[in-house]
């Protein structure tokens, strides 16, 4: 059985359609990266899963229950984002103590060690922290809560590069120690790519791709060569990205399995074949227009 399953999930805000007909499942004890550009609907989707928002139509199940307004889901889930609010009169250590009361699996030892490592002052107040420090603190809560479903919505906002790296490492090591279902949303894939098992691409409120991240690198290939040769080869294929190079060359990204036969020929036709970086592919798959920003200028 799956931890999360969504059937034809749609969410509208007034006339705006934030999520459109999304169907997917997320299995147990996997780290899934929810990737998409800003405004893709990542936060909306995560908040529906967390039970904060209500689906406009379709069915959502978390731990086999409707998450909206569901105490059981709330008790087994934690949602970390940079909008988290805490009482202003409580110090960080008091907030940790409160969190410990709420979460059964809370690991205070872990929280303390992370506190030390990131040199957070337990007597400090949350609203006095810098943006990055807030994110670090929120992350500590998310990790120490050890919830069967842990959701991080853009958790590294404001963190500097070193802390970000530490965070992902901490996440992975704690996950190895106590596997659970984790979803991390981000608009960039590259820095979390390694620790992910699955990737879920969302763009314009629609699901683009859900695949194990190890398959993502082999999902597409790039071809570069004379334009007419490429056009002939790729006729009828779905082109994820296309760019003009030089006078009569072009660069296209297509699906690898569709191109399997072509690849042999490619070398002979004087085409170069490249692998496509995973985060580039994500950008191609989720960008608004095929051909990227160049398409704005090409027909100018």
């Amino acid at each position: 059985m799956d931890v999360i399953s969504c059937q034809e999930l749609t969410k509208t805000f007034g006339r705006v359609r934030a999520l459109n007909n999304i169907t997917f499942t997320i299995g147990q004890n996997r780290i899934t990266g929810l990737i998409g550009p800003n405004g893709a609907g990542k936060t909306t989707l995560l908040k529906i899963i967390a039970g904060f928002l209500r689906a406009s139509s379709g069915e959502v199940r978390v731990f086999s229950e409707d998450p909206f307004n569901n105490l059981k889901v709330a008790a087994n889930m934690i949602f970390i984002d940079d909008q988290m609010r805490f009482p202003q009169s409580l110090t960080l250590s008091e907030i940790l103590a409160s969190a410990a009361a709420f979460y059964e699996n809370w690991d205070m030892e872990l929280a303390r060690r992370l506190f030390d490592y990131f040199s957070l002052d337990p007597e400090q107040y949350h609203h006095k922290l810098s943006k990055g420090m807030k994110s670090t603190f929120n992350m500590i809560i998310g990790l120490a809560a050890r919830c069967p479903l842990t959701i991080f919505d853009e958790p590294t906002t404001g963190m500097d590069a070193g802390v970000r790296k530490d965070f992902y490492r901490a996440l992975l090591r704690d996950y190895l120690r106590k596997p659970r279902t984790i979803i991390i949303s981000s608009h960039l894939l590259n820095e979390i790519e390694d620790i992910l098992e699955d990737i879920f691409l969302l763009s314009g409120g629609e699901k683009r791709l859900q695949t194990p991240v190890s398959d993502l690198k082999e999902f597409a290939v790039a071809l570069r060569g004379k334009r007419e040769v490429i056009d002939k080869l790729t006729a009828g294929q779905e082109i994820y990205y296309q760019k003009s190079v030089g006078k009569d060359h072009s660069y296209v990204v297509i699906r690898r399995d569709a191109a399997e036969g072509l690849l042999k020929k490619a070398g002979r036709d004087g085409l170069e074949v490249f692998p496509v970086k995973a985060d580039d592919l994500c950008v191609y798959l989720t960008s608004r227009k095929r051909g990227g920003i160049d398409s704005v200028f090409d027909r100018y």
Partner: protein
Amino acid sequence: MATIDPLLVILFMANLLILVLVILFVVKSGCFSLQNKIQFWLIAGYILLLLASPVVIQMLPKENFADERIKKVSEKDLYVQADLYTIAQGASPEQIKGVFVLEQWEFPYNGSMLNVVVRPLYEYDAVIVVERKDSADGKIEAVNYASKPIVELIDLSEIMKPHKVALDGNVLKVTAPEFLQIELGVFRNEFVISQILGDTELESAPWRHGSQLIYLRVPADVEVQSEASVHFVEKQ
């Protein structure tokens, strides 16, 4: 609905605004970043202080309390309208309810003329009643009668100052009493109490002026004269 004074409305609104600001200031403020513990002890201290205040108030020395110095007036006394002027018209002081003797004097006197002067002259109209006794016993008796001043159900007669009466030769000097100014603090029960227990009696209690009168009894052979107005009465 009754019309409301717009000034009151404005004042009321201003008050509310101040209240909102105070609440928001305390709640929102980063400028009020007290440690949680300090906050807690501030509030706890405040509540403890309040809980202790009913005990503290019992222990305060109360010599300055009206209740201690002055008798509370009884219902009976309150509605007695003692009019001293009926004495001037010949009524016997003993027969008037609510009239009491504030002070009395006795002077041996052998002269035949008595001059009654009132001080301070022109500023003060003392009410002086003179009764000629049946016999010439050589004694002038002076009685300072008074009626009870009652304010907020408190009988102030205990602190009333009497006139001064002195005999010097054939001059009887009546000096006005020292002027007394009293400030009284009273507490209304809170509206939440009066809703259940009713209003305090104060609300409807009338006030009574206290007044004073000097009653002179002179020997039968003494002639009284005065620049002040003096009422002569016959002994009944």
